[in-house]
């Protein structure tokens, strides 16, 4: 924690390039994206959208073609969490923004997840 700053203003100031488009932020993606060492002539936002669409098709196929139970439910939950993480990481720019923003999101997420898990084990009638 000590070696990586969590001060948003310091982050922005250190990376600011006045005169260059988008200098107040750090999100100015190129027209190409490198995926698994291969360069694709699409911006990262489009690549993420293609991945999100593919994962959605996979999820629906799992739900419709494979009987529920066993590994399908954890797998679908995992895919859903992966999709949510992609949106938060790339579209909401947590990959380049202050870690303080990530903490702001994660604290309530962890708390409510624990609370929900607790509620799930409370027997009916309590």
């Amino acid at each position: 924690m000590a070696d990586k700053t969590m001060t948003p203003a310091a982050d922005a100031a250190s990376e600011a390039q006045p005169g260059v488009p988008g200098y107040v932020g750090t999100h100015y993606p190129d027209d190409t994206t490198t995926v698994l060492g291969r360069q694709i002539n699409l911006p990262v936002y489009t690549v993420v959208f293609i991945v999100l669409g593919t994962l959605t098709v996979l999820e629906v196929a799992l739900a419709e073609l494979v009987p529920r139970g066993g590994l399908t439910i954890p797998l679908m939950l995992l895919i859903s969490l992966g999709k949510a993480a992609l949106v938060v990481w790339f579209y909401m720019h947590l990959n380049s923004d202050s870690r303080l923003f990530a903490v702001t999101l994660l604290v309530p997420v962890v708390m409510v997840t624990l609370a929900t898990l607790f509620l799930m084990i409370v027997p009916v009638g309590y």
Partner: protein
Amino acid sequence: MSEMSLQQTPAAPVRRDAHGDTHGSHSQRVQNLKFATWLYLASEVVIFSVLIATYVVFRLHNPEVMELFHEKMNEWPGIWLVSLNTFILLASSWAMVMGLRQIQRNNPQGLMRWIGLTALMGTVFVVFQYVEYTEMAHKGITLYYDAASGIFKDFGMRFYAPTAFHGAHVIVGVLWALYVVNNARKGRYSSQNYIGVEVFGLYWHFVDVVWIVLFTLIYLI
């Protein structure tokens, strides 16, 4: 704790932007606005979680109701309409970031086109959700208990509360998108000043993330 504060660092360069702010104070304002938005989204996480937890606990204790619900969802248009709607919302998020990309390149026309597309897709989502609700009501899944509800008498509220609350957020998002387009038309955004677009983007993507979770938990599992 001090390293997590939003204090301006002494090392920040002092330059003036188009609004006459020093560069340091401008970036400080931008970061403060974004932090405030994240705090707001954190509160939204708690509200949506209460609705989702209520649904999850009900689902756990009423597997027979869920079985029947999935049977109803398999009738046309059912799950296919909701899947299409999910795809539309994902596409709207993509349009949103592509709009942001345009204004970062100082192209307000591109911003207006992409955010306009975002608003259009948000509107289509709400219309399709209305169609879905109408279908659901015909199948006996109603908000309030009535004679036609049968086994779904306790399910309706738990189904409609999170999905309709999300739908209300989409409606707010569409109105916000139109506001952003109007601001862009008046020339209020540039490559030096696009925080208004970015804050709207955070809200819109959050609404997308909530739907990603709701879609899996309610319709697929």
